[in-house]
């Protein structure tokens, strides 16, 4: 390094631009090829899932066409209508979101704005931990506890509100093992993830604006409705969509609880009504003939496509809102 000033001054004297060698060394090129190869491998693996599933579901599509998605008649060797299961999956997911969103937002706001410091730290860690608890544990608890506890409220709804079709049961006076319980437990399951993402977005609401609202004499609730919520609206929508994506594909929480005949009915409170795609696949796949497997794969593919679209939209929104979705 000692000789550098001398070199520099002679360069200046000659007034010749110093030759730069941009471009990369051979080691760099190899490095880039290795990295590119890894990226391509991941692309191939994930891309081949889509390609393979599409290829495998072709026989069923040739045989039944779009009838697969427009009929709810599921009687494998002859009829392949999965509409009952598709609608069921969506209903479970929407029900779960309807249950999870309000309480998750309350919890997120409580952690951010109301809780004292010690409680905040505990709750943040607890919510993150609960987000990693396997779904099969939620499902098991739902099977053992929720199907019993929900009997009373379900009976109440059935007896007094049965003029609304969704508050009926497909089988008279039996509750539990229903779409409703599935929606409830999947809702409980997505509470941590919706809370965690929406909380992270809400905490980014500009602090000066919050303090400004308070300084102008606004109440805490006024600050929340006028500053925090408008600022984080997109992030909350994204968090809900991510929760929805999870709920649509959820398998074992539903598998353990649901008892279904895959029929298309608006009644949600009892067994043997709507189905669920993941349940249908789990229950029938390995023991079926190949044409049935093909039909189930096609249903799975539709589920997959739905979650892909929901997730892509959600990620786009959450990324722009500045949250982390990892």
């Amino acid at each position, binding site marked *: 390094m000692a000789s550098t000033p001398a070199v520099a001054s002679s360069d200046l004297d000659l007034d010749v631009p110093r030759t730069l060698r941009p471009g990369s060394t051979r080691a760099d090129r190899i490095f880039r090829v290795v990295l590119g190869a890894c990226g391509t491998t991941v692309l191939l693996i994930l891309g081949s899932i889509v390609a393979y599933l599409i290829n495998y579901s072709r026989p069923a599509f040739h045989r039944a066409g779009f009838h697969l998605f427009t009929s709810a008649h599921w009687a494998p060797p002859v009829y392949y209508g999965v509409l009952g299961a598709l609608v069921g999956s969506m209903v479970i997911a929407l029900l779960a979101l309807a249950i999870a969103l309000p309480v998750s937002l309350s919890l997120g706001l409580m952690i951010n704005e109301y809780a004292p410091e010690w409680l905040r730290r505990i709750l943040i860690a607890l919510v993150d931990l609960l987000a990693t608890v396997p779904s*099969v544990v939620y499902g098991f608890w739902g099977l053992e506890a929720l199907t019993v506890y929900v009997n009373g*409220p379900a009976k109440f709804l059935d007896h007094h509100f049965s003029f609304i079709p969704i508050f009926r049961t497909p089988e008279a006076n039996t509750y539990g093992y229903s779409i409703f319980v599935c929606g409830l437990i999947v809702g409980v399951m997505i509470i941590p993830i919706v809370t965690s993402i929406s909380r992270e977005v809400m905490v980014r609401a500009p602090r000066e604006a919050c303090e400004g609202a308070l300084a102008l004499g606004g109440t805490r609730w006024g600050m929340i409705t006028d500053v925090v919520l408008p600022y984080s609206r997109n992030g909350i929508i994204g968090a809900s969509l991510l929760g929805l994506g999870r709920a649509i594909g959820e398998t074992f929480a539903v598998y353990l609880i649901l008892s279904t005949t895959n029929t298309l009915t608006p009644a949600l409170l009892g067994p043997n009504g709507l189905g669920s795609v993941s349940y249908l696949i789990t229950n029938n796949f390995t023991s079926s003939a190949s044409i049935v497997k093909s039909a189930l794969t096609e249903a799975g593919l539709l589920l997959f496509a739905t979650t892909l679209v929901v997730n892509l939209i959600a990620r786009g929104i959450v990324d722009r809102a500045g949250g982390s979705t990892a």
Partner: protein
Amino acid sequence: MSGSAVLDPTLPSGPPGRERPRRRASVSSDATLECMGSIVAALALVFVVFSISGQLALSNAFGIAICWFGAFALVYGVVSRTRHGIERAKDRLATVFIWTGSLIAMLPLIFIIGWLLFKGLSVVLAGFPHFLLSDSSKAGPSDPVSKAGVGAAIVGSLEQVGIATLVAAPLSILTATYLNESKSALSRVVRLVVDAMTGTPEIIAGLFVYLLWVQPRHTNGQSGVAASMALGIMMLPFVTRGAQEVLKTVPGSLREAGLALGAPQWRLTLRVVLPTAKVALLTVTILGVARAVGETAAVYFTAGGSATQKFNWNPFHGIQLDLPLYVVQFAKVSSPTEVREAWGGALVLVFMVLLLFTVTRVISKGNRGKRRRHLVLPAWRRGAAAKSGQ
């Protein structure tokens, strides 16, 4: 503070006659009193209504609790409205609803943990550590829990998740590096696909591996390594995505400093960028592992284990049990002891996840104080810098 004088309502600050004391939104002792009073009033109201109208449809504990809460909200709202105005009433009711909502959100979650401990702990502790070390091959449906064990399931879980991690973690981190370093069209496609795949339903991964690997091999197809493939597919997008976010946080100044010193890209990446993010990358990987341990649908078609099978140490041959499969298979059986054993298995599963989660907390906390350590130029670098300066 000179500013406080302006805001002080006792000082004259405007045209006389138009001043009024500013209301400060703080909690007075009044507030507690009003809240308590409303609770009691609501209870009294509910009691009166229920005793006048006799047997109502809602007269069970759940119904009464809901009516009590509704009456409380009403009374408290009206009291706050008349005494403090509409804004304060809204604020107070919002506070009530937010705390209640939080309680409703946390209650089932805490209930699940409690239930898990209550049901599972007695099973795990029956003849400790027998439950963790043996398999259930000799335990029939009516045998006591002390004869059963999840040893085979633990071995299977560790091997399956271990193999999946060995393959998926390096691949994910290198891919994340690629996405971070390259701005080409290909990398944009990879980024999009990884983003889209992060929420892939587990069942799709299980289905794919079943069709591609298990089915062509007939009876030999289901094995630990097939389960690893499905788990690896689940981990890939998750860890890649997480690692990408981590690498984004490596300060640009560090990168620029490396480039300015004439470091080639590969050295910059391997010696500056990745070491700086080392701990966070480890955290992301462990979180991926923690998720993979609990994946059920991914292993359901692929591992094929039976809850009562013997130890299978070889992940490459024969069906292999793991913890989620153990829980799922025993959860719906008619034997109450086997259902208890399933709770034992669930407790072990959650304990493993908890352990991994705690590790991530500890290492990321331990790192916080020493973040600057990696900024020091390593020894080889000093030598290289001296040489290139000649």
